């Protein structure tokens, strides 16, 4: 789960990271009032879960409250990479004397959180990594000990010469790490970490992503989820315990298991088709999940056939069959279904389906080929 910039700023501030003032607004009126109270220049920043906000026109630096209002009118309601901007952050324009980068991710290879810093901040860090990898410094953190002061200092020396700023930055890094751990983070980033004209080190922009698996035990973090910032189908899928990602094709896919789901999409492509989605109904079977899955897939007007590919293990084929029968009787489902079932309770499932007027296949290739063919014929 991604947090908004303003939420990440709040968490960092609570962890003791120096963050410049800033307030969230949802209307141009509010923006104007806030800007007036701040006085002087302010920056207006769209709060959406997307990179490249600046390039998309979602970040504006303005001189006064009137300009702030005008900028807010443009930004609020705009669409950035398919996401509507409902909120903006208003912050005083900072007097920036340097911009660095500090980020923490969980690294698969070292199996540890890794902190990365670069004196090249304020830009896309992946570009820095690609063009000037020698300007990125990494350190794997032993989670049993946390980010120790000497480690933070040694990284901070890569950013600044002035030992006062080095010490400030080291403290920021340690607190960022603490905030990362406390939030159950998969990523925590300050970009840019600035120095201002008074020599202070401040976190100007912050980003935190949370491991979804942490949300159960971190209710305060789970409450930060902003449903208005997510696509409707993905919310419905998550609430039903499904993994769903919309794609641009026309063969709807409903599969149990992420690996098999990806392999099914690949096979759709292999047989000349285009998958409309990734959808994993998960391990434990439940007819309700199938109902939700069919509703989500059916809501996509591009879909011209729906392929079920179920390998019964924990998932029982009869549960899936019942789900299909229930869903199609509840709603008028016009899209043709191709069903492949094998494994646990396969025979029972076939019987349930046949009684309801469906037929079922046993072979994955055969099923995928048929689903592609039907979709192409319906074009």
């Amino acid at each position, binding site marked *: 789960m991604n947090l908004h910039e303003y939420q990440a700023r709040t968490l960092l501030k609570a962890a003791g990271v120096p963050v410049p003032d800033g307030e969230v607004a949802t209307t141009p009126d509010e923006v104007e009032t806030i800007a007036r109270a701040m006085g002087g220049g302010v920056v207006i920043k769209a709060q959406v879960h997307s990179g490249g906000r600046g390039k998309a026109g979602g970040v504006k630096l303005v001189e006064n409250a009137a300009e702030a209002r005008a900028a807010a009118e443009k930004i609020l309601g705009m669409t950035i990479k398919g996401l509507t901007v409902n909120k903006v952050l208003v912050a005083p324009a900072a007097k920036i004397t340097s911009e660095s980068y500090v980020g923490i991710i969980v690294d698969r290879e070292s199996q540890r959180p890794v902190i990365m810093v670069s004196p090249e901040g304020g830009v896309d860090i992946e570009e820095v990594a690609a063009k000037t990898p020698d300007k990125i410094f990494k350190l794997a953190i032993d989670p049993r000990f946390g980010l120790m002061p000497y480690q933070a200092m040694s990284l901070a020396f890569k950013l600044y010469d002035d030992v006062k700023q080095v010490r400030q930055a080291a403290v920021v890094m340690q607190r960022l790490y603490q905030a990362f751990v406390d939030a159950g983070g998969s990523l925590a980033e300050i970009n840019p970490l600035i120095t201002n004209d008074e020599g202070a080190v401040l976190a100007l922009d912050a980003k935190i992503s949370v491991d979804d698996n942490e949300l159960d035990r971190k209710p305060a973090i789970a409450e930060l989820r902003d449903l208005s910032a997510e696509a409707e189908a993905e919310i419905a899928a998550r609430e039903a315990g499904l993994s769903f990602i919309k794609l641009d094709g026309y063969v709807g896919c409903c599969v149990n*298991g992420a690996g098999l789901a990806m392999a099914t999409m690949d096979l759709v492509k*292999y047989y000349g088709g285009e998958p409309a989605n990734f959808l994993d109904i998960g391990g434990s079977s439940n007819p309700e999940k199938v109902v939700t899955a069919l509703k989500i897939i059916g809501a996509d007007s591009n879909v011209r056939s729906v392929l079920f590919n179920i390998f019964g293990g924990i998932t029982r084929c009869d549960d899936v069959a019942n789900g299909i029968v229930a869903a199609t009787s509840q709603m008028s489902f016009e899209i043709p279904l191709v069903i492949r079932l094998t494994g*646990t309770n396969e025979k029972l499932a076939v019987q349930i389906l046949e009684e309801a007027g469906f037929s079922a296949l046993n072979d994955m290739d055969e099923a995928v080929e048929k689903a592609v063919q039907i979709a192409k014929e319906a074009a």
Partner: protein
Amino acid sequence: MSIFVDRDTRLVVQGITGRDGSFHTSQMMEYGTQVVAGVTPGKGGQRFNRTVPVFDTVADAVAETGANTSVIYVPARFASDAIYEAADAGIELIVCISEGVPVLDMTRVIPFLREKGTRLIGPNCPGAISPGRSKVGIIPGTICREGNVGVVSRSGTLTYEIIHQLSGNGYGQSTCIGIGGDPIIGTNFIECLAAFEADPDTNAIVLIGEIGGTDEQQAAQYVADHVTKPVVGFIAGQTAPPGRRMGHAGAIISGSSGTAAEKMAALEAAGICVMKRPADVVSLLKERL
């Protein structure tokens, strides 16, 4: 023979009285696995299915029954504690089935296991089965067949699909292992490849990977350097869009080194035959054996 699980596996089931735990314990017992103990705090002294003694702690279970392997079916938020407990009790191999274990928990579990010298398979994995000998986890026993192909995979049902293809076409398995799809797992491809290479009853290896991370590339390098047996590979996620998560956390494309195309190229460069689709596993194996 086989790797990791075999006839000498003496299994303790952590979470034996739970919904998943009790179902799969029955399945494992039917398959012939030596389930010697179960653990559910507060149910010590009871018996599961009137036969398997249940204990309050893994330490008690190990002391009383000589269990050497554990399988974990507890809810994700208790899984890391269950792993620590098993490792602390002297269990040699822990198979963690639980899905949804927080990644930061795993960053702390890994060095603990390293100090104890304990092997972990998973979490978020289907476990391991040595057909005809022992099954630890949830891989359906019915689709497996005794034989000489080693199977190692990051996936669950996709593995079943490929085992199904193998068994249906006369290729039995020495051991099938699902290593789990999470970003941080206990046992990786390389450790399984090394074990299969050393196993006299494994003649060929099937490696099933997916997008995300660089484990498959490293595995490919290991095969090139150390594996003499024929290896056939598959990578799921050729059509997955970059930068999006596909169901489980393993499938994140990080930077430029996690795409299916790149992984397939790495496998091929290492001399591994790469399937275009799961069904190709049979013809490719035939070619190599």
